[in-house]
């Protein structure tokens, strides 16, 4: 029993990695260049910046929390935040439509929108 289940584990592992790779491939192929960086706090759009501009702004979320958004050279990133895990700061800068930087503790999403794309509220 032990060897059979380990073999199944490996099949599962490989299948999941293949699925992840396929998803990643499809997503990458679909990525179009972005035009705006949209700031969404708790599901509500609070700011919209052109990627072509240079921005250094603080985003405020519930409870007086802050994330600092920087846009330069057509890329958006979060450079500092007071959330406990700082995963948003570690996430790479984004520039293609559909890419996002997420700060879950602050319910914050910075999303890139492309030309002519307006998401329904």
């Amino acid at each position, binding site marked *: *029993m*032990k060897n059979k*289940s*380990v073999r*199944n*584990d490996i099949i*599962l*592992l490989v299948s*999941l*990695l293949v*699925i*992840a*790779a396929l*998803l*990643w491939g499809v*997503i990458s192929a679909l990525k179009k260049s972005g035009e705006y960086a949209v700031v*969404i706090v*708790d*599901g*509500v759009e609070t700011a919209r910046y052109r990627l072509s501009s240079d921005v250094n702004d603080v985003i405020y979320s519930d409870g007086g929390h802050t994330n600092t958004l920087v846009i330069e050279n057509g890329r958006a990133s979060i450079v500092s935040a007071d959330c*406990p*895990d700082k*995963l*948003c700061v*570690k*996430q*790479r800068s984004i520039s293609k439509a*559909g*890419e*996002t930087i*997420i*700060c*879950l*503790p602050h*319910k914050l*999403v910075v*999303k890139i929108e492309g030309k002519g794309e307006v998401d329904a*509220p």
Partner: protein
Amino acid sequence: MNRKTRLIALLGVSVAAAMVLSFIETLIPVPFAVPGIKLGLANTVSLFLLIKLDWKAAGAVSIIRVLLTALLFGNAASLAYSFSGALLSIAVMSLLKKTGVFSSVGISISGAVAHNFGQIVLAVFLLETEQILWWLPALIVSGVITGIAIGIVVSILAKKIVLKI
């Protein structure tokens, strides 16, 4: 002490251990910058109970641990995410355990990926941003990695620890 009392005592200790592990993992930075990523150390307890006892014990400890941890250290949002992740994770792991197809590593991987999946789907709804789903590949990979680690730890523990209920 009868069986029921021993079981209650075991579950109580398990919840406490899981909560301590939850806290410890906040001290360990994860090298991958993926939203919502965790090591999932507390799941060693749930998975251990799933293997040694049954899904009810594992599920009870999971749910109670999530509730208490969120009450003590979190907020409504963190509770929602932990809860949805934990529910889906326990459901998937319990079902797979029943089939007997996978060892603890396979079950752990499935639990980890299910947990991440549950959280990401909830995030899409709460933050009203479907592009969050684009993080799925990264979450699957991190789920596989953490799942393997936890699965190996649990299979070692399961061999060394004899549970007398």
